[in-house]
């Protein structure tokens, strides 16, 4: 338990509160293979394409690997077409690093309390 939480509970004279620290690590997100499996599905690109004109503001990141590759590009670089076998193929062949980058990004946001 963090010291400030401990002090707060002591001052309140309440020790029976359930205490849990909400910290998400990159490795935690990798615990759920379903997320990675879903990110490999080419149909999820559809939403990314419709987001292009109105994308959320760029999320600043101190991680150079991520700054070099904005998150919204992770999908759009699989070509701007609707689902086709060639895209499905490229998605299966090359996305592993991107998927991990996205999961890492999510966990960074979690660590900064932004999700």
């Amino acid at each position: 338990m963090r010291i400030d939480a401990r002090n707060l509970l002591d001052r309140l004279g309440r020790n029976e509160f359930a205490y849990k620290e909400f910290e998400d690590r990159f490795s935690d997100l990798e615990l759920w293979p379903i997320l990675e499996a879903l990110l490999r599905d080419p149909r999820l690109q559809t939403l990314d394409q419709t987001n292009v004109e109105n994308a959320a503001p760029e999320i600043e990141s101190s991680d150079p690997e991520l700054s070099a590759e904005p998150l919204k590009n992770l999908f759009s670089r699989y070509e701007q077409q609707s689902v086709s076998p060639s895209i499905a193929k490229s998605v299966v062949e090359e996305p592993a690093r991107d998927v991990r980058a996205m999961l890492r990004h999510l966990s960074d946001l979690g660590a900064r309390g932004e999700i």
Partner: protein
Amino acid sequence: MPMIVCHGPKGGAGNTFVAAHLAMGLSAQGADVTVVSVAARDTLPLHFGLSPATSLPAITAPADEAVLVGGINLRSWRRAAEDLDFVPMLGELGYFQPGKERVLVVDVPSGETRLARRLIEHACAHVCTITAQPDTLALLPQVFGEAGAEGLARTAFVINALDETRRLGRHGAAFIRELAGSRLIGRIRLDEAVPEAIATLQTLGRYAPASVALSDVQQIAEAVAPTLDSTASAWVAPVSLAA
């Protein structure tokens, strides 16, 4: 009078709860709201504090049979799924015109995907309520694939019954947020007051004015309001309102 279609891919996610509170929120903002349930088994009246014995009048029923709660007109159309005249009828009744004054909110059960698609074509917004649970996430590729880019252009996502004290819930919500970007217009926290209000036959606002789910869902109604005037086929929530 514009139409807002409430429809999610998975049952029990809170679609009816959100439809009811969108109706209440838009009504509180001054709109003349009609909410229509097309569910064969209908729980919509419960969110308005009505008793389980309530049976809503058909959308075509005369005004003297109307069920009004706080000025909101509650209606039903049970055979909507088989009735090919339903969508044209709504058009003739003037429900597809933009404007803030009169609004139609339609609660479409998760199973009625074809009816939902037919309605969304004419709607100013499609509010898609999902939970952050993994079985719901698993349906998203199919949802996106069926809707296509054009259908998704009108879609705004809402995460409901979110439990941020659970790691999987936080991760699921983060995943949706990253995927949907500014199309995620809000999240509604898990709140026991929602079923408790139903059990006391009261609206949530009356039973628990301080309910977190109530304030969350009110914010969603505010985020949806700008679509009522929209004539564009695509609508994206202002980024400042994204959860």
